[in-house]
């Protein structure tokens, strides 16, 4: 369980990081907490000849909530997500999801930036970010740009991020209404067999807005516009819930692996989404 040898760098500023990325191209990777990347390196499923540690860079951490918007620096850990009262007040779905990621030790190290940038379909934050319609902020040699979470994921481990860019922060509008993050997993620390992120707002007893995203049920997270649309204007009762689940099932494309066959995953996806919609509605 020892990875291939690599050169290690701990630059002091972002210019230093970008210069290294430009020099080494896809032979280089940045590492934050490392709890997605290091296991892959140990299994030799990822080979990283040049490892660039971001821990020496100032300004990549911290949670800011201002003017109806939330900004979470890329190096913010899952532990910090869980312990931020301000974030729990502004976007409680973040804490609910983070508590279901991995285990305490991993959450002290694992970061939001690493979780969203890695492109692992098993990671929970990408689907959550799509549910919240977040923007990902990237810094590269030509400056900064933002990419919508819903446009970021191309395939497993393939994202919109260029090899010489670093994801520095995620931002999203403070969500309104009720939330739920529901995850089925085999044990603490496992990736999801199926997980659902749901935000629903209510007006006049009916669903005013609904956003639904699913995790680990395709080679990318799946934001199911049709599932959200199936709830709009309804009383979010049993029929609407079923319609949303049916719409979601049309959008996912799970594959068989050691978490079960396709039919089981589709079943689990329906269960978690049904529960998440009911819980989000009860809080809306």
């Amino acid at each position, binding site marked *: *369980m*020892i*990875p*291939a*040898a*690599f*050169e*290690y760098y*701990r630059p002091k500023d972002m210019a230093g990081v970008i210069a290294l990325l430009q020099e080494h191209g896809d032979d280089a990777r940045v*590492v934050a907490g*490392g*709890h997605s990347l*290091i*296991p892959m*390196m*140990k299994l030799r499923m990822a080979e990283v*000849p040049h*490892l660039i*540690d971001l*821990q020496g860079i100032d300004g990549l951490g911290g949670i800011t909530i201002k003017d109806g918007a939330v900004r979470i620096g890329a190096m913010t850990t899952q*532990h910090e997500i869980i312990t931020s009262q301000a974030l729990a007040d502004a976007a409680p779905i973040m804490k609910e999801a983070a508590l279901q990621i*991995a*285990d*305490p*030790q*991993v959450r*002290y*190290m694992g970061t939001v930036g690493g979780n969203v940038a890695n492109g692992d379909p098993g990671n929970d934050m990408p689907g959550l970010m799509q549910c919240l319609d977040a923007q990902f902020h990237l810094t590269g040699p030509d400056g900064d740009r933002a990419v919508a979470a819903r446009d970021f994921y191309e395939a497993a481990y393939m994202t919109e991020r260029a090899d010489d860019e670093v994801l520095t922060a995620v931002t999203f509008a403070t969500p309104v209404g009720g939330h739920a993050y529901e995850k089925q997993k085999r044990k*603490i*620390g496992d990736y999801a067999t199926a997980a659902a992120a749901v935000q629903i707002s209510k007006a006049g007893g009916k669903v005013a807005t609904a956003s639904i995203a699913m995790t680990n049920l395709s080679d990318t997270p799946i934001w199911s516009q049709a599932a959200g649309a199936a709830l709009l204007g309804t009383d979010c009762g049993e029929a609407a819930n079923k319609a949303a689940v049916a719409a979601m099932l049309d959008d996912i494309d799970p594959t068989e692996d050691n978490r079960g066959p396709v039919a089981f995953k589709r079943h689990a996806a329906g269960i978690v989404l049904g529960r998440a919609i009911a819980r989000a509605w009860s809080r809306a």
Partner: protein
Amino acid sequence: MSNKMHVKLNVNGEDHEFLAEPRELLIYALREKLNLTGPHVGCETSHCGACTVTMNGKSVKSCTVFVAQADGAEITTIEGLGSPGALHVLQEAFKEHHGLQCGFCTPGMITRAAKLLEENPNPTEAEVRFGIAGNICRCTGYQNIVKSILAAATELNAAKEAAQ
């Protein structure tokens, strides 16, 4: 490639400096370079928690940290919590309440529990179970581990109160 680098660690209050390949896992540096064999190598895949140490105030699985990342860090292992002649309150509680059978998971379990009680001095049973969810024990069924940690919490709080 595979050039060695100078690594500085402060472990259990003592400064250490040694040469290591960046890819060396922190657990092996602790065990093989510093002879601190309390933290164990269980699964080596970030699941079991037997290698848990405290690094810069965080409970971490030292099998999932490269020694290069730990350069400059302050680390506490089970050896830094207590000694055979002066057991830590948690070690005493594990002994008293049969919180271990084979003992393999115990160093990681106690190191994690120490951090948990530091952050949450009055945990409920559910909070203890959730807080040690990253540590696996294959002997005890956790019952007595949870009992030991709750007993240590009571003990630590009584000592704090007495000191005031």
